[in-house]
Structures are given as C-alpha cells and as structure tokens.
C-alpha cells in the first residue's frame, strides 16, 4: 500500500461559489493523498465544505460554483484537465458517489433495477454490443443478470421481485442499499460517501457501514467518507481529516486524531462527546459559531473560538505543519514548532509554504 503512487492525490484545492458579489470559499487549500483501498474520513460540521469537496472531485459543483485552483490527480491524471468526455468515463466507472438522502437521490420515475442498470450500460460493463433498441435483448438480459447479482451483494432481499420496484416502494435502508448498488455497479476504484447514514436510523446505519466495510475489504475499493460524526469516522476509517470552515485543520491516522488530537478544534470536538463509563462528566461545547464562508478571518479561521489564541494567529494564513510523519496540524500554537528555540512565525510560515 505504501509503495507506488497514491490512487488520488489532491493538492491545494480551492472551490468557490460567487454569491451576491462576494466569494464563498467552500473548500480552501485542501491537500491529501489516498492510497488504493484506504478509507479516509472527512469530519466537520454541516456547511464546512465537506460535500463541496466530494463534488469537486467529480467536477459536479453546481453552477456558479467552480474549482478555482489546485490539482486533483487520480491515477496521476489531473481531473481538472480532463475533457468532458473523459470526465464522463471517469464518473460512475472509476469514481462514484453515494449521497446523503436516498429518497430524493433516486429518480422517482424509474425502477430501481433500471437505475442500477443505467451505469452498467453507460460504461459498457457487461457487453459492448451497441445494437439499438429493440435489438438489444441479449445485452439487456446480461445486464439484468448482473444487476440482480449486485442487488444481492448489497443485501437487497429477493432481487428478482425488487428489480421492477420503484424507489418509493423501498424503505430508507433499502433505498440507501440501492444507491450503494448504483455506485458499485461498475466496481469503481474510489467511492465517495457523503454522509451515507445520516438519513437512516441507528441499526440500519450499522448495517450500511458494515456493508461498506465489506466492500472495502473484498474489492479493495478506496473510500472517502464524509461525516459530522467523529465517533463513526474513528470506527470506520484508516485516516481522518478534520475540516473547519473549508480547510483541513488536522489530518492523521485514527489513533493520532483520537488519542493525540493537536488542533484545538479537534480537541474541542472530542471534548463535546460523552464518554461511556464516566460519571459526572462535563460536556464542554466549543463556544461561538462557525464563521461565514463568505467572510473568513484573515488568519486562522478558528481563532475567534480558540482558547489558545495568540496575536500571531490572526496575522495571516496558517500553513499545515507536519508534527509527526503523516500527522498534519494547521495550528501555530499547538504545533511542535513553537517549542523550538528559533521559532519565528515569518520563518516557519515562509519555509512551509515554499
């Protein structure tokens, strides 16, 4: 896994939405790498840019939003530079996405079977004979066969009977399984999951997560899981990136993030979780509110809510510091640098950004 190039490498990604003459910076300066078969959790509050990050990867940000700058290297090809045609070949086949609200995401006018089959047909997965309707019977039958297999794999019972059902006839859990089946139809290398369990109740949540875990193990599909639930991410993922106001503020393995959180925001998130087995614990919420993405402070976006805040935090953008190998922290105060005798903001920032 460590050897060779990563499956996906994102460098300094910026995505923006122009709005009423202002620019909303939904994703700012996001960089990360994802190996084949790895699971990355992106944790953050609602509206912090998590979903926009995923949509940026598929170049599906809704107009007038756009990717402003940065690189997204998928198998060493920059996604931003692909033609529309190449992009369509990538979507659904190499990178596919699971959305948050299954009912509104499935098209109410088509049967679930057809919706799963559409991906197979688009990417000529089962067969590439291109006879037009009505001479495509053989191909259709082969594709249906494959759809039934996939439905079975994601745990939709009696797929034969369910093939011709409409989304509204399914329960929430079944709808989410259908979405997963659509995403998996072409065996993509990367699965983008945008809060896939938020709309579901807890028992179904566990089932869906188990299913995704199994897919990851059996097929080696890399996953980026976006969630607001740090607990869920720490059970499910290999690495976690904590996102705040459009930026990754801390990135590391699950153990590093949970056992040794460095960024004050990550610490705050962990502090406001109740812990089992501790009596009289105080839950300490983070004071203040998330800043507006249209009006971010000049320096660290978390500074107004931070208890460690110093003057230096507000003077300019804070770079990511690699505090341990693979453990990144976007904080001037809690990074190891401050303990070095020659610590100097200008020097450190200059060196990191060079």
């Amino acid at each position, binding site marked *: 896994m460590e050897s060779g190039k990563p499956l996906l490498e994102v460098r300094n990604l910026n995505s923006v939405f122009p709005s009423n003459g202002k620019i909303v910076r939904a994703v700012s300066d996001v960089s990360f790498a994802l190996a084949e078969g790895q699971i990355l959790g992106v944790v953050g509050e609602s509206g912090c840019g998590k979903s926009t990050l995923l949509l940026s990867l*598929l170049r599906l940000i809704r107009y007038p939003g756009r990717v402003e700058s940065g690189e997204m290297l998928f198998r060493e090809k920059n996604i931003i530079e692909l033609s529309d045609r190449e992009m369509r070949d990538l979507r659904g086949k190499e990178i596919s996405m699971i959305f948050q609200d299954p009912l509104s*995401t499935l098209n109410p*006018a088509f049967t679930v079977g057809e919706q799963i089959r559409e991906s197979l047909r688009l990417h000529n997965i089962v067969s590439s004979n291109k006879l037009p309707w009505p001479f495509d019977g053989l191909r259709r039958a082969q594709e249906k066969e494959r759809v039934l297999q996939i439905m079975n794999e994601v745990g939709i019972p009696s797929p034969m009977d369910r093939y011709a059902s409409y989304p509204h006839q399914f329960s929430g859990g079944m709808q989410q399984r259908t979405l997963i089946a*659509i995403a998996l139809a072409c065996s993509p290398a990367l699965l983008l999951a945008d809060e896939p369990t938020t709309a579901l109740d807890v028992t179904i949540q566990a089932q869906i997560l188990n299913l995704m875990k199994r897919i990851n193990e059996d097929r080696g599909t890399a996953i980026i899981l976006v969630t607001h639930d740090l607990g869920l991410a720490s059970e499910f993922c290999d690495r976690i990136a904590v996102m705040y106001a459009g930026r990754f503020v801390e990135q590391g393995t699950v153990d590093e993030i949970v056992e040794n959180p460095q960024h004050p925001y990550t610490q705050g998130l962990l502090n406001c979780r109740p812990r089992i087995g501790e009596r009289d614990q105080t839950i300490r919420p983070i004071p203040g509110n998330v800043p507006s993405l249209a009006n971010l402070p000049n320096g660290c976006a978390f500074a107004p809510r931070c208890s460690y805040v110093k003057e230096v935090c507000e003077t300019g953008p804070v770079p990511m510091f690699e505090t341990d190998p693979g453990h990144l922290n976007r904080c001037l105060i809690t990074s190891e640098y401050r303990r070095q005798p020659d610590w100097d903001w200008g020097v450190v920032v200059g060196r990191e950004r060079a």
Partner: protein
Amino acid sequence: MRSIKILERVLATIPIMFGVAIIVFFFIRLTPGDPVDIMMGQGGAISAGELDRLREEFHLNEPLHIQLWYFLRDAARGDLGYSYVLKQPVTSLIAERLPATIELAVGALLFSLVIALPIGVISAVRQNSWLDRLSMSTAFLGISMPGFWLGIILILLFSVQLRWLPVQGRISLGTGFQERTGYFVLDSLLTGNFAALKSSLLHLVLPSITLGAPVAAVIARVLRSSMLETLRSDYVTLARSKGVAESWVVIKHALRNAMIPTITVVGLQVGILLGGNMVIETVFGWPGLGRMVVKAIFDRDFPLIQGTVMIYAFTFVMANLIVDVLYTYLNPRIRMQ
C-alpha cells in the same frame, strides 16, 4: 387493476354530465329574452295564436320542471332535441360542426407543444440567458394578447400582405375535395388528394397559431419552472455522477419528471382550446361549434346551446381523464400498488 380504475373514472363522468345538464338548463333560461319573440323578430305581424302554437311546439308553455324532465329523458337516450332556428336535430348539427372544432383544437395543441416543449426546456437549461429572457417575455406577451387581435394581425401580415396563407375557411375551392369523416386533413389523406391536403393544412396554420399561442405560453412557463426544479434535484446530480451525458440528463432524468406537473396544465388548457375558439372561429370564418353556439346564444336556441355545452363539458372531462391516465404512466408514485 389500472383498467378498472380507468373504467371507474369513465363512470364518474355520468354524474358530472348530469350536473352540467341541470346547470346549463337553468342558466340559459335565466338569461332575459324569449326564444319565440326573438325568432319572430320586430315584424309584429304575427298573431298571438301563432306564438302560442310555437311555444307549445317547443314545450315552452310547460312548467320548468316538466321541461327539464323532457330534456333529461331525451338526453339519456342520446337525443339532444331540435334546434328552434335551424329546424334540425341538435345531434346532427353538432356532428356536422364538431370535426372542424376538434381539427382546429388538435392543430393548436400540436402547435403549442411543438413550440412550448423546446422553449421550456432550453429556457430552464440556459436560465437567465438572453434566450431565456426573450422566450419568457414572448410567452408573457402570448398570454396577454387577445386572440382576435393576434388573429387579425396574422391575417394582415401573412394573408393580406405576404399572401402566403389563406384568409379564412377550411379549404380552397377547386381542389376536388370529397368529405368523408369531416376531418378535412384526414379526408384528404384517405382520398389521396394531395392538393386538398395541402390546402386544408395551409388553412389550419393561422387559426392554430392564434388559438395555440396563449396555450403554448402557459405550457412553456410551467415547463420551465418545473424543469428548473428537477434540474436542481439530487437525482439529476446522481445521474451526472453516474456519467450520463448532459443531454440525456436533461431529457431522460429532468424532463421526464418535469412533465408531471406540465401534463396537468396541458389538460386544463384543453378547456381553453374548446372554449376560447369562439372568437378565433369567428375571426377565421372557421365553421366549428364555437361560431354555431355563439349564434345559438343570440337566438336563445335553448336545445342547441344545451347540446353544445354538454359536448364541451364532455370533451373537457375526457381530456382530463386522458391526462390522468398519462399521469399514472409518468408518475409511478400514484400508480395502484
């Protein structure tokens, strides 16, 4: 299961027609003016006995509830009575005029769909583009322009000035046209008379545009707004994330769902195609039901008014029934389980 549901709806039209019959019966009798007086005109050289004899012939001397009973009894048998003025059975008068009206309504509906569907879709896809602004302001104009005015302008321009299209009527003389069903386009095809086909189609153009313009405007606006909604929906994003090409995203995923509210509006517009054609038929000298019923109203020709209104109501109910059937096809959520 679905056919049972459709049958149910067909049967439900019976009480509706009954209600329409009663309402139209009383309402025309509430309008001032006596049919016999109007028929006799201002001459005055008619004896009271003569008037009484006519009233007796038309059952107008009987109490209202007896007249209503006669009307309903005959209507149930499919007999809509005798026109006071034209001295012919109402059913045969309607049968003679109805094809012209339907032909015009179909022409107008086709025109409006051909215009409105692409405009609605393109305006939504290119929202706020100059094309969107232009077509939406044209649509606004189409809704607000009175039909007779638009008709006259079109006649002045295309018939009088440019001489491209005929001024009025359904077909030119000298085409050797033979009438079979009353639908002139269909008849020309059946007899293989292409001169007549061309002439009848050319005669349809201006009235269809005039009648269809406001309908097209309404459909385009409704389609645009529902397309805007479906284009923003999650399932359209899902389709894009599967790798569906943009044109297919629009046509297959967005338009299919946007047609659901649009088709309802199309059904309601059929009422305008039928009820709004009186003015258009007059402007274009189109020998349809609309012109006949307007004259019947001036004449207080009760049976003819009653019969025509019943036919209008029936057509409207049927159009909406067809819409409902289409609706279950487009929207699986309301299909019977």
